[in-house]
């Protein structure tokens, strides 16, 4: 089937939905999502959204900006950060007006709480900046935005999996989708295509990410010749529930939770004397693993997150979801017992390079890839640099999802549909047929599990050249094995094995890009820690990595530094 829309958004998470709401009245917009609406992983965000609205104590956007830049280990582009933090209060009020059920403080205003790396007076002490709805903030914002999409009758192609982006004469002019419910292929023409497909945490063995976080959008862009920026920066959230990796929100520490080692010591006092448990995530993750390495963790490699002093009432009111996870999955009651936690792959700071209006950049000079836009976790504006602060991701999706939509609205008014040939559809058909016809001795699950272990072993919190090279070698040999994967399910309806095969192809490509980016960056910055180069090296590496599919594979782009010059990063 052929369809045509002005704007097609891929992904129904927060960035995609926010963009759709922004342009639905003025343009014909459709959302393509491989899951049902409200199942996107934005819904798993727990802790909150940051904005310097100062409902609890004095706050300023300049402080928010400083914290974000410092959190990013000075790799974020400060012009983009400034746009984001200045827009944050408007975002919060807009969500509230749409109906988001924010928790309230005794004055009836939106309640705010502490979060890692967010401080007052440029690092002096923690500040309450995160606006929240208990510990289900992402889910209620996702629900509210979905409801707005329904209200404005946004067209959804749900359970449609995108197989390729269509380019005609260098302009992105549509996409080919595979309808999971029928096995049919569709060609959807568009004047503008927005990639809002989220992250790729499922490349790693231990992750807070859902099954759908396979990075399809990132690699669709990369295959189309778009570079990927700063892919070495993968965030490991310090408190994944041991051993599942499920997120235990930083809100737990924001509300007063304390990390303790096997001696009962509050070990963060040693690593971050000023803000302690509320240091940035990369710092806390390294601290936890250092405790474990030095024999002060618990058997299996975890530490304790202690909430027992907070009291049942506060825990149930503000941390209901995580309490429920701990009770269900571990049979432990966090009201009375500490929670076992360890770092879990959580967020990709890198991604598809864009300008501050979400237009995709195709090289280091900043040339625009026509018709293609990106927002949210799959994009790299870059506001998070080498390490993202908690609660800045929801803000990112909402600020840049909206800006992207505004840019698309303006851009599509000026142009008509580019004539699209049927060739991409034929190509996709051939790809599906050849995948289904292939005989081989490998299975998806085996290759995928190997990839996840390799990435965990060699490319997680601590890295070095030897390990990264081993990882790269391993991923390359997995790519060979992947070409020998046989798909047993030949069915037409909800053939998840077929979709997972395509996803795995993307994951292996991205794993390689992440390893290569990590090898090229011979310094330690934010979430990228090289044990063989443990110091930050501003002289040589205060720049963005761009990885291309064509030689030269690595190129660099300068960092935009406006207000805050790089300085030593101490918490």
């Amino acid at each position, binding site marked *: 089937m052929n369809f045509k829309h002005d704007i097609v958004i891929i992904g129904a998470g927060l960035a995609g939905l926010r963009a759709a709401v922004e342009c639905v009245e003025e343009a014909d917009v459709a959302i393509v999502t491989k*899951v*049902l*609406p*409200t*199942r*996107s*992983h934005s*819904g*798993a965000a727990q802790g909150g959204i940051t904005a310097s*609205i100062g409902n609890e104590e004095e706050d300023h956007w300049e402080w928010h900006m400083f914290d974000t830049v410092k959190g990013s280990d000075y790799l974020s582009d400060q012009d983009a950060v400034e746009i984001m933090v200045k827009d944050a209060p408007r975002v*919060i*009020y807009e969500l*509230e*007006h*749409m*109906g988001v*059920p*924010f*928790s*309230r*403080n*005794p*004055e*009836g*205003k*939106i309640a705010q709480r502490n979060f890692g790396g967010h401080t007052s007076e440029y690092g002096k002490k923690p500040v309450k900046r995160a606006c929240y*709805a*208990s510990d*289900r903030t992402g*889910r*209620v914002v996702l*629900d*509210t935005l979905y*409801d*707005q999409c*329904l*209200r404005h009758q946004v067209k959804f192609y749900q359970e449609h999996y995108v197989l390729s982006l269509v380019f005609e004469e260098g302009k992105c002019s549509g996409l080919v989708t595979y309808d999971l*419910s029928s096995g049919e292929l569709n060609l959807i023409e568009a004047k503008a295509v927005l990639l809002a497909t989220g992250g790729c945490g499922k490349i790693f063995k231990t992750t807070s990410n*859902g*099954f759908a976080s396979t990075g399809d959008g990132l690699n669709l862009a990369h295959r189309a010749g778009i570079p990927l920026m700063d892919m070495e920066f993968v965030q490991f959230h310090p408190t994944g529930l041991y051993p*599942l990796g*499920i997120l235990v929100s930083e809100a737990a520490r924001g509300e007063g939770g304390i990390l303790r080692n096997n001696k009962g010591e509050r070990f963060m006092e040693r690593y971050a004397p000023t803000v302690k448990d509320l240091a940035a995530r990369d710092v806390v993750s390294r601290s936890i693993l250092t405790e474990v390495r030095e024999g002060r963790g618990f058997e299996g490699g975890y530490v304790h997150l202690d909430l027992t002093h907070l009291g049942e009432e506060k825990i149930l009111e503000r941390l*209901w*979801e995580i309490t*429920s*996870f701990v009770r*269900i*999955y*571990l049979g432990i009651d966090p009201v009375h017992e500490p929670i076992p936690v360890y770092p879990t792959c959580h967020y990709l700071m890198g991604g598809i390079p864009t300008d501050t209006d979400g237009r995709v950049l195709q090289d280091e000079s900043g040339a625009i890839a026509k018709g293609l836009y990106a927002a949210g976790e799959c994009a790299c504006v870059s506001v998070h640099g080498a390490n993202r602060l908690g609660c800045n991701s929801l803000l990112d999706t909402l600020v840049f999802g909206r800006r992207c939509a505004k840019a698309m609205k303006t851009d599509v008014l000026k142009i008509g549909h580019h004539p699209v040939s049927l060739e991409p559809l034929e190509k996709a058909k051939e790809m599906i047929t050849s995948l289904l016809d292939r005989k081989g001795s490998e299975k*998806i*699950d085996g290759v995928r599990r190997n990839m996840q272990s390799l990435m965990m072993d060699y490319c997680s919190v601590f890295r070095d050249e030897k390990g990264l090279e081993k990882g790269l070698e391993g991923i390359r040999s997995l790519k060979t094995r992947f070409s020998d994967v046989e798909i*047993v*399910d030949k*069915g*037409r*309806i*909800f*053939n*998840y*094995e077929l979709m997972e095969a395509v996803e795995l192809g993307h994951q292996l490509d991205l794993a390689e890009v992440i390893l290569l980016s990590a090898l090229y960056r011979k310094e330690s910055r934010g979430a990228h820690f090289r044990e063989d180069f443990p110091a930050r090296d501003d002289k040589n590496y205060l720049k963005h990595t761009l990885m291309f599919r064509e030689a030269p594979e690595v190129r660099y782009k300068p960092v935009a530094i406006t207000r805050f010059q790089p300085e030593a990063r101490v918490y």
Partner: protein
Amino acid sequence: MIMKFRIFRYDPDKDNEPYYQSYEVEASPKDRILDCLNRIRAEKDSTLSFRMSCGHGVCGSDGMRINGTSSLACQKLVKDFDENEVILIEPLEVFRVIKDLVVDMDPFFERYYSIKPYLITNTQPPEEERFQSVEEHRLFKDAIRCILCACCTASCPVNQDKSTQAYIGPAALVRSFRYLFDSRDEGSQVRIALLDNKDGAWGCQTKWMCTKVCPKEIPVTKEIFEIKKRILDSKKDKK
């Protein structure tokens, strides 16, 4: 340990009738039933279809009947079952089966949409946030836990009964409650008009199944009762 499963299978392209297939997989006590299903797909039979996304009870994708009770496969653990029993896995009731455990959710979301699941306001909002007291927020704090997994609607005897299947169902009513009791909402009249009929709030026969199965522990039946009370109160006000 080895766990035994009996799973509902149906592929409209191949099967005239649904049937049940048995599988055995290695499992440990803390595994989720979802882990077992994925192991079945990886090791025994990759043609088995079911939805999943977050894997920890937030997205609402993997609602299915486990030993007859609507549940999330990611929230039930192997240790909740006896090693010797055969765990029966079937699709949610009420909804049409598309393939295996995948059901047609369109009617569910259509009913959800019919209750106007958004804040209705007539007055211009202030520049900053609207005020809402902690007590006002508390009135609907349980309802915002709803993840639209449809376990409640699928378990409701009223929705299951062909003669009363037009009942809007508990999930849509929970969302109605969430807006009806939100102090910021100004759409009470519209909402009450939508709910005050035999397939609306009055369709509820207080069978409590929704409350029993809700994976997010929402007091669903009680909230539906509160809606009914609100409808009656609005009529008293008119007199």
